[in-house]
């Protein structure tokens, strides 16, 4: 019964996303706003692989998001004018950095882990911020743009056609989310749940906890880098702010807002966050304080997040 309801939710979400360019205009939005929702949802879902399903809080995921963004932008600007290669390099850069940082911090727990992820994140931020000649420094990396994807028999114009780029992003999102969902239903995913639920018990079932936390961190950062690469392509621009600690905080807010114990929670959280941001920033420069108030209200009254609350209400009725 519960599984069946879950199927309907999945179906509704995929239908909504697949048809988004056709209804978002009527709802007062525009296609590239939808693209931003999907990109941020990918980043928040990837963060939540670690936060919600391994029980480890990272406050430095923007570093890998930003590495994905700069990797893609710099590849296209300096090396090869290829969108596909840009994405690949961005993801590889973010994942490699995560593999090294993760190996250094997998022994830390709780607030110590979070603090050190911030510290490492800021290292990457300052490199992007200071290294003017290569990264564009404070001004960000501009002077490049996403290029049509050449399929051999024809090409997809993702630059002039917002809709085509939306569907490219959605395809990336769909594959990433399917892989993460499959991992979470596998023995590997259950070993991560075990660590979230009770690290001591997991260890004394023969699970080497540090190794699994490292793996979960790397998987999570792999998909966050993909989100970062797509984000840079969306904007034709990489911003040093993409790597900064407050961007990491935004990912955490999205996951918690939507419900970090649910798989789709981060998508819901990202949609609320991005749409609120888009709307509020036309009214006031202080849009973040309004999102902050909203976030506090949700955490106070619905500690399981928006989706967690909806699910609970259904379960009790």
């Amino acid at each position, binding site marked *: 019964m519960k599984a069946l309801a879950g199927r309907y939710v999945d179906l509704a979400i995929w239908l909504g996303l697949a048809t988004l360019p056709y209804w978002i205009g009527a709802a007062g939005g525009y296609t590239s706003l939808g693209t931003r929702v999907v990109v941020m949802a990918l980043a928040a879902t990837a963060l939540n692989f670690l936060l919600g399903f391994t029980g480890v809080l990272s406050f430095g995921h923007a570093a890998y998001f930003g590495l994905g963004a700069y990797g893609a932008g710099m590849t296209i600007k300096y090396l090869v004018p290829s969108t596909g290669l840009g994405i690949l390099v961005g993801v590889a850069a973010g994942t490699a950095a995560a593999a090294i940082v993760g190996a250094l911090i997998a022994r830390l727990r709780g607030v110590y882990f979070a603090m050190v992820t911030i510290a490492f994140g800021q290292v990457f931020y300052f490199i992007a911020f200071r290294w003017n000649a290569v990264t564009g420094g404070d001004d960000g990396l501009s002077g490049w743009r996403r290029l049509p994807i050449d399929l051999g028999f024809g090409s997809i114009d993702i630059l002039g056609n917002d809709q085509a780029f939306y569907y490219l992003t959605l395809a990336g999102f769909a594959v990433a989310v399917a892989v993460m969902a*499959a*991992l979470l239903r*596998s*023995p*590997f995913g*259950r*070993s991560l*749940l*075990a660590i979230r*639920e*009770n690290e*001591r*018990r*997991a*260890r*004394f*079932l*023969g*699970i*080497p*906890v540090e190794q*699994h936390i490292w*793996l979960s961190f790397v998987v999570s950062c792999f998909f966050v880098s993909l989100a970062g690469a797509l984000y840079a392509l969306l904007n034709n621009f990489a911003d040093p702010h993409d790597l900064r600690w407050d961007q990491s905080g935004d990912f955490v807010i999205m996951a918690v807002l939507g419900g970090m114990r649910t798989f789709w929670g981060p998508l819901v959280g990202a949609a609320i966050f991005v749409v609120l941001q888009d709307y509020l920033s036309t009214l006031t420069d202080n849009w973040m304080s309004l999102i902050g108030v909203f976030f506090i209200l949700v955490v106070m009254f619905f500690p399981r997040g928006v989706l967690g609350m909806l699910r609970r209400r259904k379960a009790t009725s």
Partner: protein
Amino acid sequence: MSLLQVDNVSRQFGSLVAVQGVSMSVAAGELRAVIGPNGAGKTTLFNLISGFFPPTSGRMTFDGRDVTRLPPHRRVAIGIARTFQITEVFPDLTVAENLRIAVEAAAGYRLRPWLSQRAAREVRDRVDALLELGSLGAKADRPIAELPHGDQRATEIMMALALRPRLLLLDEPTAGMGDQETYDITRLVRRLHQDRELSIVLIEHDMRVIFHLADRILVLAEGKVLAEGTPAEIAADERVQAAYLGKAA
């Protein structure tokens, strides 16, 4: 031949010597009880045997192999499993999910991103067998946090058994339980010992349970071995009566 050999093991926390020069030999198939007043070092001894932390000095071998500094997950792999004084399970998951994680870990599937149909069926069968052994079948799909303490404890023991241990360490399995639950757990432990010839080391306060189950008893007091022997010998030992049984009575 002894399965577990503990040689002159000590563990210090700052200036506190929790375990001091303890030696113990557990034979294959033996059920050994460890008793002693609160603070005698029983749980510390368990933590040393299971690898929770290493000893300050001394040596431990398991089946002839030096395990003194082996990390816990490696000890599990060679056959040492334990339960905890305060039940340690996965609270948000169901009984069956708790067992499934243990079964998959024991089968070496912990890194698998998918399972073949056959492997998945074997896991299911093994979970079902453990549910039956622990009399938990009717509660398989209930979140474990909702269940009474006795069922949680039985699940924890089944999780340890899922690891197919050769040595099972049970830290006060009947602590905080009513008479019926104590009886059920005692019967389960005896079955594991007699039917499966599993070696068991048991920390316990309930004297009925100990004298009912144990082959031999080790008495600790203030971190040291006070006495060791059969239940009859321990019951007759004056030092033990003074230090422990006297107090209990």
